[in-house]
């Protein structure tokens, strides 16, 4: 198992810049998520780590060794493809043993190793079946088997759950995470599903347009977004944004929206002009006494909680409140925000202002 270091990695396809100078480190044994919308460069990054794509510039170190110019076959990495890419002309056993055969492992050892892996994945009974007739989940397990059989330095997974049914995906995600914990293998996992990333990852890199927006633990990324993009991409419903104009000074502990002072985490930098007040729905409380008022547009009942859509003087926002709290549409209510959790952004760049809340985690790119 290995640590993977990415330094200023860049990839251009002709005139198109797919990945812009990115740097991050995947610790040994980490379950590392590359998260972003489609076309953001996450798969290209993964393929560069695996050696399927050569970077335009930058460096990739696996276990301290510079592998930037090496072909995939010499990097000792396993790759799980979105569509599984099982060799269709081979049965399950041959698919799993294929990487071992390429290493010239003796037949008896291959048999033993394949049986061992099949037992871990619970596919011992289908070893002699052709891969054509397998269910999605079994294909997924065979693809995983082919990846783990070699004990590679690291695993690359490109949306491995993307081709599965929604209900089965949940189950497979747990299985994957359990497998990772058992083997403690460094894993780089690409997904566009923020829930999957939060659920499974030790660390997340959020990418957009080839640029790394934020890099950190799921909690940090959720609670302390570095950019407006991250705040909106993560969370369901996403963070609400209330645009306002004004001036804030470094050291200030509140901002003024529509004449109402709203407390925020103490700012470490000042800013002026177009700003955005960001608040997660669960940090909004309805309170009759609060001075910041909004009108209820709609409510969605979700069982234990309900999502209330509100129209404030600064724009539409959502609140997640207990479902037993009575709310009627068109009613005007007062809003209170959990001050410690508020993020402020510059509207033009989308960058979060450094504050008491996020000063420890804000490292962009």
């Amino acid at each position: 198992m290995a640590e993977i270091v990415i330094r200023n990695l860049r990839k251009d396809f002709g005139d198109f810049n797919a990945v812009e100078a990115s740097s991050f480190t995947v610790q040994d044994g980490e379950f590392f998520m590359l998260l972003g919308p489609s076309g953001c460069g996450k798969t290209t990054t993964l393929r560069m780590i695996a050696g399927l794509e050569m970077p335009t510039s930058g460096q990739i170190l696996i276990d301290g060794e510079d592998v930037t110019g090496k072909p995939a076959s010499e990097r000792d990495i396993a790759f799980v493809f979105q569509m599984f890419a099982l060799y269709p002309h081979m049965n399950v056993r041959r698919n799993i043993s294929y990487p071992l055969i390429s290493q010239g492992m003796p037949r008896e050892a291959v048999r033993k190793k394949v049986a061992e892996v099949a037992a871990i994945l619970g596919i011992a009974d289908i070893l002699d079946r052709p891969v054509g007739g397998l269910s999605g989940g079994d294909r997924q397990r065979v693809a995983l088997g082919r990846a783990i059989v070699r004990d590679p330095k690291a695993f690359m997974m490109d949306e491995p759950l993307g081709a599965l049914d929604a209900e089965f995906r949940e189950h497979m995600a747990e299985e994957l995470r359990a497998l990772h914990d058992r083997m403690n293998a460094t894993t780089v996992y690409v997904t566009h599903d923020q829930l999957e990333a939060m659920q499974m990852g030790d660390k997340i890199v959020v990418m957009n347009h080839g640029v790394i927006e934020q890099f950190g633990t799921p909690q940090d990324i959720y609670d302390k977004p570095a950019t407006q993009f991250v705040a909106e991409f993560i969370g369901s419903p996403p963070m609400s944004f209330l645009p306002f104009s004004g001036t804030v000074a470094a050291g200030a502990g509140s901002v003024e929206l529509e004449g109402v002072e709203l407390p925020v985490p103490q700012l470490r930098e000042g800013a002026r002009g177009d700003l955005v007040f960001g608040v997660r729905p669960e940090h909004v409380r309805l309170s009759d006494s609060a001075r910041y008022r909004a009108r209820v547009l709609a409510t969605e009942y979700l069982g234990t909680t309900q999502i209330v859509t509100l129209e404030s003087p600064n724009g539409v926002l959502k609140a997640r409140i207990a479902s037993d709290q009575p709310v009627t549409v068109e009613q005007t209510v007062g809003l209170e925000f959990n001050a410690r959790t508020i993020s402020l952004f510059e509207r033009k760049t989308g960058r979060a202002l450094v504050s008491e809340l996020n000063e420890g985690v804000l490292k962009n790119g």
Partner: protein
Amino acid sequence: MSGYSITDPTRRQKWIAGTLVVLYALITIMPLLWIFMTGFKSPVDAIAYPPKVTFQPTLEGYVNLFTTRTRVAPEQLAALPPPETWYEAIVRNRNMVIAGPSRYGQRFLNSVIIGFGSTFLSVFLGTLAAYAFSRFRVPLKDDLLFFILSTRMMPPIAVAIPIFLMFRTLGLSDTHLGMILLYTAVNISLAVWLLKGFIDEIPREYEEAALIDGYTRFQAFYKVVLPQAATGIASTAIFCLVFAWNEYAFAVLLTSGNAQTAPPFIPTIIGVGGQDWPAVAAGATIFLLPVMIFTILLRKHLLRGITFGAVRK
């Protein structure tokens, strides 16, 4: 009841369609059947009028096809020792003796060498080229592909004279190598285009998986892409073989003795000792067999090949 349905035909529709298909098959198969039957007729039966459908079958046509014979006087024939073989006996009945083997066997062998040789070369080169065009960033890819296709934009025979002169200068006239190269040149564009279509349909991930699994690019091609492309390779091979096997015009123009293939040879049988239609028919029947067997062996691939890519999975 709604009007017409392709997927769920009525009994009457099935009956009409079936009749049409059988009728068409009969019409198509009739000339072949006639040639096959003529091969087993005696020369008299072969030109009988009205044509005979029932007749006494004989192998005379086949014997004549593979032998050359000389006519001898009846008294000389009587002086000879009794015939040692059944074919000798057939020939004696016509007051002739066998002088030696005919050149049909050798011409047939030429057809096999040139036909299968050029098919192998077309498919081999075509597969490599198609793979490169499909997977790599080839400079001027579209122009090159168009250039390859453009070689098929006029009938090959239109360039017969330049090719004739070229072959004479290079010493390729009437050689196996020359004919193999010529048929390969004609077939290669078809092979590249057909195979590129097939290889495009094979997901890259298979090779990438093999690359990750520790195989070289060539091993990935050989062990993963080739088995996947078998259908395409088989149907391409059939198309190439059928062309090279049947080709007549270039064979007449460029070969005479050494490398002459069966198609230009078969008509020359007519001239040997009268209008020997049974021998011609026998020659045609035997000539048909290899392509028929080849096609039947690969027909599963051929059918899949024709509909390949038509349905997205």
